[in-house]
Structure formats: structure tokens, C-alpha cells
């Protein structure tokens, strides 16, 4: 899962942290959590779509 975590961190950092401040504020933390859930939704969807295609 290492690569998933690395990519997710990069993508969600780019989406949620437009101006990095001195700490992660509340709205940034919420955004990261949502982004993470959506990234895994997408990952599962991609995985299912690709699997059913190559069978």
C-alpha cells in the first residue's frame, strides 16, 4: 500500500493545501480526509473497471 499512500498524499496535498501555513487548520484536515475517501473510491472503481475489462 506504500505507493497508494504516497500518491494519495501528493494528490490530496495539491487539492487541499493551496497556501501552506504554520499548521494544518481544521478545514484543511477535513478536506484531506474527504479527499482520501474519494481517492480510495476512485481507486476501487478503477480497479473493478479494469479487472472486468481484462477478464
Amino acid at each position, binding site marked *: 500500500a506504500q505507493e497508494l499512500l504516497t500518491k494519495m498524499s501528493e494528490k490530496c496535498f495539491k487539492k487541499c493545501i493551496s497556501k501552506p501555513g504554520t499548521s494544518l487548520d481544521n478545514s484543511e484536515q477535513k478536506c484531506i480526509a*474527504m479527499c482520501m475517501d474519494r481517492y480510495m473510491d476512485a481507486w476501487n472503481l*478503477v480497479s473493478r*473497471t*479494469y479487472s472486468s475489462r481484462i477478464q
Partner: protein
Amino acid sequence: AEKQKAQFHAQIHEFNELCWDKCVDKPGAKIDSRTETCITNCVERFIDVSLLITNRFAQMLQKGGEMH
């Protein structure tokens, strides 16, 4: 089989990055059906494009000889 599994996972990561960038603008509280359709179509069409390119490339090699 181990190698195939690794290749499969590498593909998923590649597709996911590409289709995430294409389909997800602002991540919301739930994945909406429009995003879901976009991601499914994105993966399907990307596979179509790869196959189209691979087949056409094979034809070119047969007709015109080697590239370099």
C-alpha cells in the same frame, strides 16, 4: 504470477492518477454519479486508446519495417 500482480497494480495506479486528474475537481462528501461515470468511461477509453495505438503500431512495423 507475482510479477503479473505487480504489473496489474502499477496499471491501476497509472489509470487512477490519469482519471483522478481528469474527473475529480473538488473532492466532496460522497462520490457523485457524474464523477463515477467519468472515471469508468475514462478507464475504458484509455484502454481503447492503448489498444488502438498498440495495434496500429504493430501494423506499421509490418508494413514499413523498423523504427529506430
